[in-house]
């Protein structure tokens, strides 16, 4: 059984007890424990069930590579699934539950799958569930989804807060082991601004456990000294519990800092968004499991994890531990266990000989060392009870059974090359050390083609303390120099190592294992992929490692194959009879381990989820029944609902009242761009299809803008302000993009033209005062002359109205007598209130965007985004009148002369009137009397705008129709989903006041 040792551990503070619960059981741990160490201290060996076969699983590792110990953690607003027990620091009140079991962890019905495992081979789902086809969506998938899956999805909102932080540094060092500390030391001494991050809660990495000699002292002493030196330097920032998650282009790095747990007011996680001139990946290495039968039983752990639990947390996994290895490092585990007073019945070493200093030390300590041997099978149910021993060279004939309750396995070490690889760093296969390691000649490159990532220490393939320190320090120095820091770095640290004998790669144990043994030799613990599955995939032709991964699901779990990748591709290469480097690795993608959705979101939640643009009158709208609709990032009133009205009622009331008396529209969102300079007229003649240079001062002209490809992109009224200055109104959505479009042409193409533009959209609140009583209400406010003679249609004047300095445009988008009045935005609300007061006697009603749309449609005016969709040219809308023939050029002119643009068969704008007076469905298609080659009905037009007109008391619509203007009076049939086609007659698009008399009074 696993338990807390009397010797305690170096990371736990036994004076601070912490209570937590697991599957409802109340348990105790200490400050400094991880959830994993606390569970093990309470003899909780079984922590979950596997994904596919529901096999009992225990903790395998002590770090981020953990595939099994994933928990549903917390509850309610603080619930989060798939939390790794090995990287979760214990806190008071922590609630954890194991995942993927039913009805209970101890008794799981799904475990029957394990007995059926020979019927559930690789690719089983693909093979089994493909026929009959429709069954997948409606039968198979819903059932499989229910039985599969790890954690539960959270319900409701996250009760915690999160934040981002941007930092710019010269050198970012990822990893706070002795390599990272050395790198940071060199870079910091050189004067670089350094950010050093460590994913765990303690500095020093493996060296703090294994205690090699550094600079003549114990490693922990050197670590303390170096951490102190770094902490004292102003140019260094150090963060524990902060994982380098991803390396991206241009030295952009994401780091994930875990701050608080348990629903405090402070942020739970912080996502660091770092720009670094150089990145050092001192990310360490991960120990590989060995592939033998039963290697997934609770009690089988990585050898280094077994000694981590003893040294760091004072936790033993079992009383009798069998060590199985192919390298010298695992001997350290045996020695640590022995020193802790535990029993090590045998070290099973697959190598033919083991005579190095570590093996000698083990023998001297009285430990039996069996070379050339392997584990045939691990015995036990929910925990290990014994191992059977066989020759590594054979097929698994048992020579001996050793009783034990823990197996510590080591298949060698794989450098953590993830962050090196994220942005394109390449790898070499080091056959002597049996590992992929970074190829320093092929680093990820920056905009200048120079490398910006430097691997250091074990992550760079240096397994020995001496090399780790030298390499780490040199990396820091190189990075600092590349970042422009020139200070002296002094002498680097020196390490001392015992000699070690070489590793002998073991990809299967025993090497000739029978099918039965191979079928229980796990590669990927979380996704239940075995040696036999990978071999089957190869046999069935999935030769690419990427295909094998997807066919077998090897490495596709939440641990992304941290333990399984190298073993899996080694097995694959064997099956393909290819070399490991020729098979290659799958792609390493960020994040290194999963990070919370909250951290990605940062502050962008609730009211900060998305900025909402508000006009100066927004509050009035909100207080007066506005039913808002998004227009770009603005919220504009769609209609103002009064009492029990429906939205439709409100819209009709607003239209009628405006046409009969007086309406107000908040038009502040329309773009307003000032264009000025000696060449401004010439510039606007290029921007607009019509002539703007000839517009007299004081007058307004409606204009169209096209893209270079001739398509209509924006429209609006342009006012000539003075000799050199024009004010261009754009659509609400077009304000920013048209401003940018103008700057683009001025900065990149016509940089020698003397034109300045200024976007003054938000300087003004603009109110459309519309209706037969519009003039009366302005005259009531008093001030400037707004009579027909003083301010004729399509002209503008500056002046005052009441207390307000205003600019008044006599323009009309509704067909009524209409003034658009601009005031400084700071006075917008006051002006709006003044208009409401003055307009009370005319029963003034503000109207929303829908009434605006209806009134413009009644007048046959187009709307950008309704009549246009990026494929419509002005000619399609019969707007040849707006295309100047006097100008040599305008943007889009050449494109509009292309044969398809000039084709008489293009669909053109017409009005549409249903025969029965109903409203056509939006976007409905006109059905042509022919069938295409696929047997579908052809179409000959579509509806672009359609409304109920309260003025005409019937449906009106506009649409683009094949040769439409030539077919006046024809009847078309329009699609009507779920009903019979609707008949509509082609008519003139102007439904109301065709002569334009009402607006020009």
């Amino acid at each position, binding site marked *: 059984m696993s338990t807390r040792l009397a010797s305690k551990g170096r990371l736990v503070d036994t004076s601070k007890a912490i209570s937590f619960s697991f599957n409802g059981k109340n348990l105790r741990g200490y400050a400094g424990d991880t959830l994993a160490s606390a569970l093990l201290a309470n003899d909780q060996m079984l922590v979950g069930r596997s994904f596919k076969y529901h096999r009992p699983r225990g903790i395998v590792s002590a770090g981020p590579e953990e595939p099994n110990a994933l928990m549903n953690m917390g509850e309610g607003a603080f619930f989060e699934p798939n939390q790794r027990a090995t990287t979760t620091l214990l806190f008071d009140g922590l609630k954890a539950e194991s995942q993927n079991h039913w009805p209970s962890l101890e008794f799981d019905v799904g475990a029957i799958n394990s007995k059926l495992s020979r019927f559930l081979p690789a690719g089983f789902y693909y093979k089994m569930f493909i026929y009959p086809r429709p069954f997948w969506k409606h039968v198979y998938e819903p059932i499989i989804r229910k039985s599969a899956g790890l954690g539960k999805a959270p319900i409701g909102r996250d009760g915690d807060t999160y934040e*981002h932080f941007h930092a710019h540094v010269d050198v970012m060092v990822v990893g706070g082991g002795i390599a990272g500390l050395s790198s940071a030391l060199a870079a910091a001494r050189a004067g670089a*601004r350094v950010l050093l991050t460590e994913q765990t809660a303690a500095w020093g990495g493996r060296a703090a456990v294994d205690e090699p000699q550094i600079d003549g002292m114990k490693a922990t002493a050197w670590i303390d000294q170096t951490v102190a030196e770094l902490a004292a330097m102003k140019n260094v*920032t150090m963060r524990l519990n902060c994982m380098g998650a991803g390396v991206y282009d241009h030295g952009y790095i994401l780091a994930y800092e875990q701050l608080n747990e348990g629903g405090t007011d402070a942020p739970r996680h912080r996502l660091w968004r770092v720009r670094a001139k150089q990145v050092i990946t001192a990310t360490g290495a991960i120990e590989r499991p060995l592939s033998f039968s039963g290697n997934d039983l609770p009690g089988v752990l990585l050898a280094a994890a077994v000694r981590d639990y003893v040294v760091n947390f004072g936790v033993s996994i079992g009383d009798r531990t069998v060590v199985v290895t192919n390298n010298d490092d695992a001997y350290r585990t045996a020695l640590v266990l022995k020193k802790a007073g535990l029993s090590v019945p045998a070290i099973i070493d697959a190598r033919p000989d083991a005579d190095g200093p570590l093996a000698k030390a083990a023998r001297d300590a009285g430990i039996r060392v069996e070379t050339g041997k392997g584990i045939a099978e691990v015995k036990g149910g929910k925990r290990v009870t014994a191992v059977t021993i066989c020759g590594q060279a054979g097929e698994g004939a048992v020579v001996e059974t050793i009783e034990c309750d823990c197996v510590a396995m080591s298949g060698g070490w794989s450098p953590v090359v993830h962050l090196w690889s994220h942005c394109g760093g390449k790898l070499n296969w080091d056959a002597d050390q049996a590992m992929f390691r970074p190829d320093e000649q092929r680093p990820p490159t920056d905009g200048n083609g120079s490398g910006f990532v430097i691997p250091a220490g074990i992550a760079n393939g240096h397994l020995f303390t001496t090399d780790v320190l030298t390499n780490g320090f040199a990396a820091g120095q190189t990075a600092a120099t590349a970042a422009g820091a020139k200070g002296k770095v002094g002498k680097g640290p020196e390490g001392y190592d015992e000699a070690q004998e070489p590793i002998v790669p073991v990809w299967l144990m025993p090497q000739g294992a029978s099918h039965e043994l191979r079928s229980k030799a796990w590669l990927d613990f979380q996704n239940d992929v075995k040696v036999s599955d990978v071999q089957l995939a190869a046999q069935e032709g999935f030769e690419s490692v990427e295909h094998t991964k997807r066919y077998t699901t090897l490495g596709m779990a939440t641990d992304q194959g941290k333990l399984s990748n190298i073993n899996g591709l080694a097995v694959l290469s064997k099956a393909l009879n290819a070399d490991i480097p020729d098979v290659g690795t799958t792609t390493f993608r960020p994040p290194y381990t999963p990070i919370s959705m909250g951290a990605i979101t940062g*502050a962008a939640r609730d009211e900060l989820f998305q*900025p909402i643009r*508000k006009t100066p009158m927004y509050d009035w709208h909100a207080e007066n029944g506005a039913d808002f609709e998004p227009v770009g990032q603005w919220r504009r009133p769609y209609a103002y609902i009064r009492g029990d009205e429906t939205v439709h009622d409100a819209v009709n009331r607003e239209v009628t009242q405006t046409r009969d008396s007086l309406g107000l529209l908040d038009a502040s969102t329309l773009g307003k761009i000032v264009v000025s300079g000696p060449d401004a007229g010439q510039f606007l003649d290029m921007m607009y299809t019509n002539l703007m240079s000839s517009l007299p001062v004081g007058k307004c002209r409606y204009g169209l803008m096209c893209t270079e490809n001739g398509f209509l992109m924006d429209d609006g009224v342009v006012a000539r302000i003075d000799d050199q200055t024009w004010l261009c109104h754009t659509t609400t959505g077009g304000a920013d993009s048209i401003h940018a479009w103008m700057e683009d042409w001025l900065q990149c193409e016509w940089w020698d033209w003397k034109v*300045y533009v*200024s976007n003054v959209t938000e*300087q003004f609140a603009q109110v459309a005062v519309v209706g037969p009583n519009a003039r009366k209400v302005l005259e009531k406010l008093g001030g400037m002359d707004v009579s027909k003679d003083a301010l004729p249609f399509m002209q503008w004047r500056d002046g005052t109205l009441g207390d307000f*300095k205003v600019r008044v445009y006599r323009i009309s988008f509704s067909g009524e007598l209409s003034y658009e009045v601009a005031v400084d935005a700071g006075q917008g609300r006051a002006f709006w209130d003044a208009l409401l007061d003055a307009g009370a006697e005319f029963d003034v009603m503000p109207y929303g965007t829908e009434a605006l749309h209806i009134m413009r449609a009644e007048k046959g005016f187009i709307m950008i985004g309704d009549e246009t969709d990026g494929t419509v040219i002005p000619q399609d809308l019969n707007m040849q009148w707006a295309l100047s023939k006097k100008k040599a050029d305008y943007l889009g002119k050449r494109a509009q002369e292309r044969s398809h643009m000039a084709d008489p068969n293009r669909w053109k704008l017409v009005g549409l009137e249903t025969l029965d007076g109903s409203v056509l469905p939006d976007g409905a298609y006109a059905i042509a009397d022919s069938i295409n080659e696929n047997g579908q009905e052809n179409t000959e037009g579509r509806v672009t705008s359609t409304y109920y007109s309260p003025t005409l008391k019937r449906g009106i619509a506009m649409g683009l129709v094949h040769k439409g203007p030539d077919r006046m009076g024809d009847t078309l049939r329009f699609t009507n989903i779920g009903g019979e086609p609707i008949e509509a007659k082609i008519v003139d698009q102007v439904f109301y006041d065709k002569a334009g008399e009402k607006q020009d009074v």
Partner: protein
Amino acid sequence: MSNAISALEGRAVAGDVTVTDMGLQGMISLRGDLSDKALTKVCKSVTGADAPKPLQMSVAGASGFGWMSPDEALLLVPYNVVRDGLASINNALSGQHFLASNVSDARAHIVVSGAYADEVIAKVSPVDMHPDSFAIGDFRRSHLGQVAAAFWKSDANTFHVICFRSVADYVFDLLAASAKAGPVGYTS
């Protein structure tokens, strides 16, 4: 005008780092050749501030002269003298190619002040706010969260933020939330 109001109407939040609406602020956007002597002269006479270096805001009392781009300046003056300032510029530069616009009402002016004010900005802006990189008088056009904004540093713990009027609520709330979440401990 007496009835003019700022978008945030004087909102403020207290705390270790305070976030405060500065109310009505006169602002003139000036497009023109910033190396032109007549231009810098009239800007100095309007604001009292010397011509700024690139990426800087030159401050003189309640007024300022900020570098927006090689051909754009932002002049800060008291709200009630904007029209006078515009008239001075238009007179002084008459006949030259330039464009001066009143943008006072188009924007909001917010001050972030306190011990970790730089970190409050750095939580929501990609600008390097480290005191070794961002000195007093430094001025950037960047973004805060999801919207455009500009800001300058007036003393070690005080930053002035300018954003568009329509998103004043968003920027204020974002800065207030960042301030409330506490220090990061990076820049200090």
